[in-house]
């Protein structure tokens, strides 16, 4: 009789899924540097869900997509929006190739700067990646919304997607570093990801800014039972987005629904994945937490 092994932790499942997404994106990049452009389904940019946002206004106003994008961008964007309607920014935490790379680079930074073994829920002795001080972190988090507005504005008069020459996905995965600007984007992306965990997601990603809106109403979310939570802060340590007081802010716009908090919590059934009316669940949790203070 076969012996059933211990199931893989949730974070392992996440990293496997992220690995598969990175591999698939690499395949798309490799396919686009091979001969046979006619069978690639469009340019490399056509495989980006954010391309759908970049080309949305030109399509509505002029009836055509920007160059290097096509209808596939809208299909992917609809897929991402579908996930967001159900689970908020889960795409960022589980399916984004750039998010996966940043998680990998943060792991490398920790290993290179003093962490020998990761102990879940315990503050790492590694010097990097760091958390920016709150006075810098908070205003910078709004930068991604400005980037989103700027790109939507620029797309009105653009021929190519406004992010075309500045996109880290192109810089990392397209294998066509044809301009010095793309090289500098690649270098900046790697260095910032080593220094600050998920720098791109926290401060610059326009797709993350768009999906953050869904965090407010998406019904599938981690919910903290305030009666069981002892505010030990283990979840704060593991949060890749650096959210302060995770236990009180699972509806936070910055939350990428990676469920590291759920896996880290040492008390069973304290953080649970819940499907239902999010406002009521979160408000009830917040009320009882403020009552217990």
């Amino acid at each position, binding site marked *: 009789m076969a012996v059933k092994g211990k199931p893989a932790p949730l974070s392992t499942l996440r990293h496997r899924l992220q690995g598969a997404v990175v591999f698939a994106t690499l395949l798309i990049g490799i396919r686009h540097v091979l001969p046979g452009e006619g069978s690639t389904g469009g340019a490399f940019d056509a495989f980006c869900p954010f391309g759908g946002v970049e080309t949305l206004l030109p399509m509505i106003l002029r009836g055509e997509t920007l*160059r290097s994008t096509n209808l596939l961008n809208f*299909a992917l964007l609809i897929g991402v929006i579908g996930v967001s309607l159900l689970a908020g920014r889960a*795409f960022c935490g589980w399916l984004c190739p750039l998010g996966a790379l940043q998680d990998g680079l943060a792991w490398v930074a920790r290993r290179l700067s003093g962490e020998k073994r990761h102990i879940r829920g315990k503050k790492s002795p590694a010097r990097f990646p760091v958390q920016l001080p709150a006075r810098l972190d908070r205003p910078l988090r709004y930068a991604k919304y400005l980037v989103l507005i700027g790109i939507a504005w620029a797309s009105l008069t653009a021929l190519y997607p406004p992010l075309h020459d500045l996109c880290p996905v192109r810089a990392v995965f397209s294998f066509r570093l044809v301009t010095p600007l793309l090289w500098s984007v690649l270098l900046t992306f790697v260095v910032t990801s080593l220094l600050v965990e998920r720098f791109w997601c926290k401060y610059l990603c326009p797709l993350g800014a768009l999906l953050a809106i869904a965090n407010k109403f998406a019904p599938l979310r981690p919910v903290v039972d305030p009666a069981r939570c002892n505010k030990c802060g283990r979840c704060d340590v593991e949060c890749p987005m650096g959210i302060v007081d995770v236990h009180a802010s699972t509806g936070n716009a910055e939350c990428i629904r990676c469920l590291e908090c*759920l896996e880290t919590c040492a008390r069973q059934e304290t953080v649970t994945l*819940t499907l239902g009316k999010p406002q009521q669940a979160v408000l009830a949790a917040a009320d009882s937490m403020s009552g217990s203070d």
Partner: protein
Amino acid sequence: MKINARLYPAIIVTTFVLFLLLALLLGFRPGHGGGGGHEVEHVAVELASALLSVWGRL
């Protein structure tokens, strides 16, 4: 309603694939060799006329 967290990856991947397939079935399909072109214009016109007809009924 509590959901088993181990089902979470399957739920989000399934949701993504379903919405992607729905979008492809609705006509958001890749063009060959680059973007732009008549098919885009065609779909845009169809979408616009569908929206206008719904508006008209309201």
